[in-house]
């Protein structure tokens, strides 16, 4: 891998950051919402009463809660079939809190030049976020205003104290230390998601026909489109990709003349941007959480070199091969059928 090629323009659109902020704000606002003078969402365990936006559920109504969970599971399956791992990349608490913790780490290292001080402030910040998360979570089970009012001078019951610390520690360990290892090794949904995919499910893809053979080059020779080289045939493209991914098997790649190179600059910006250091150019990977960092990093490089963007993009296998998109597919229909059935059963019960 060679060093990054050029000063890189940051992507202008920060909608992913905004979405993370909105989701975090939504979670932390949730226990503060009021409905008819009561907390809108309160699983009041001591009183054995669940308040769900003006709708009171008693212990015998536990079936309704399981029904809601089943509706959410079917919706997630439908979303995965239609949109790929959008949940993982953008909405999963593991990703959202992990991004927040990483941002705190990055900002501490950026502004505080003494490493010991940066580490201390980082841990103070992590602990504060984890504690607030724990309080908010416990605030869904015990009235939040009394919980926050009792924070100082320590009027919490032993059980409130225990559960706040339990969830704070879980947040701190998951978002601060385990991070994407949870997605790689521990998450059942991450294992299940690929079986919900089909040829029309969008994934983060590298356009090997346009990008290969990859390599460093002098400035000013233009993209494959601009200099008329066009796209490679699929067999050669996958051959180059395989050889680049397995140098021990295939030997080092030969040096290509600049006019024969594809659009991949081999700058490794995509690998550095990936939270798991995956190389998306090796094909769609089961570990990829579709966060889109590599897409932004590659697009920034493409802009810096005045190449068209989209060498790495979110696209389905059918779209990459220029085949038409189908909407009615077995997995989509199964998930949709399950969802409609659950909703119909729920409506009949009410």
């Amino acid at each position, binding site marked *: 891998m060679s060093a990054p090629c050029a000063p890189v323009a940051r992507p202008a659109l920060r909608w992913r950051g905004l979405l993370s902020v909105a989701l975090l704000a939504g979670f932390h606002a949730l226990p503060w919402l009021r409905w008819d003078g009561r907390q809108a969402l309160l699983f009041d365990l001591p009183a054995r009463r669940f308040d769900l936006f003006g709708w009171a559920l008693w*212990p015998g109504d536990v079936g309704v*809660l399981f029904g809601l969970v089943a509706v959410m599971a079917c919706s997630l399956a439908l979303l995965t079939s239609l949109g790929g791992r959008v949940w993982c990349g953008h909405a999963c608490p593991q990703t959202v809190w992990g991004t927040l913790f990483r941002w705190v780490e990055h900002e501490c290292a950026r502004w505080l030049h003494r490493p010991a001080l940066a580490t201390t402030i980082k841990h103070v910040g992590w602990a504060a976020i984890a504690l607030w998360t724990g309080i908010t979570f416990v605030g869904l089970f015990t009235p939040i205003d009394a919980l926050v009012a009792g924070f100082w001078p320590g009027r919490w019951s032993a*059980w409130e104290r225990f*559960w706040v610390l339990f969830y704070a520690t879980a947040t701190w360990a998951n978002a601060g230390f385990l991070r994407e290892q949870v997605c790689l090794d521990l998450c059942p949904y991450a294992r299940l998601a690929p079986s919900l995919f089909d040829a029309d499910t969008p994934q983060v893809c590298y356009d090997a026909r346009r990008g290969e053979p990859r390599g460093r080059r002098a400035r000013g020779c233009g993209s494959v489109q601009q200099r008329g080289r066009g796209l490679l045939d699929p067999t050669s493209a996958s051959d180059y990709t395989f050889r680049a991914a397995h140098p021990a098997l295939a030997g080092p790649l030969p040096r290509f003349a600049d006019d024969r190179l594809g659009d991949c600059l081999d700058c490794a910006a995509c690998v550095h941007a990936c939270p798991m250091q995956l190389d998306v150019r090796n094909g769609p990977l089961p570990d990829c959480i579709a966060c889109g960092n590599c897409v932004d990093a590659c697009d920034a490089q493409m802009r810096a070199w005045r190449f068209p963007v989209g060498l790495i993009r979110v696209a389905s296998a059918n779209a990459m091969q220029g085949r038409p998109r189908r909407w009615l597919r077995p997995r989509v229909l199964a998930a949709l059928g399950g969802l409609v059935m659950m909703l119909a059963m729920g409506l009949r019960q009410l």
Partner: protein
Amino acid sequence: MRPSNDPPGTRRRTLIQYWGAVLWPSFIAAGLACGVFFAFVDPLRLRDISFPGQALSRELGYTLGFFMFWAVTALASAVTGYLLRPLPRDDDELPLG
């Protein structure tokens, strides 16, 4: 690129994978079991049957119940994990002859 068999950090990763696979699914299962169980059984009624005269709150009942379920499910996961480990039956380690 992160090859899955790289030596640095492999031991840590294996440990987290093993303990994660034991503790995490058992946590979810215990949460589900706890939800269903306490939907039908009030911890205070259970206290009156089992420990009459003791001042045990509902919160203590829920917490104890949850950790009891978690201990049992984690034990099942741990035994499953232990049984799934490869047996040392391979005779490669024994000297020949």
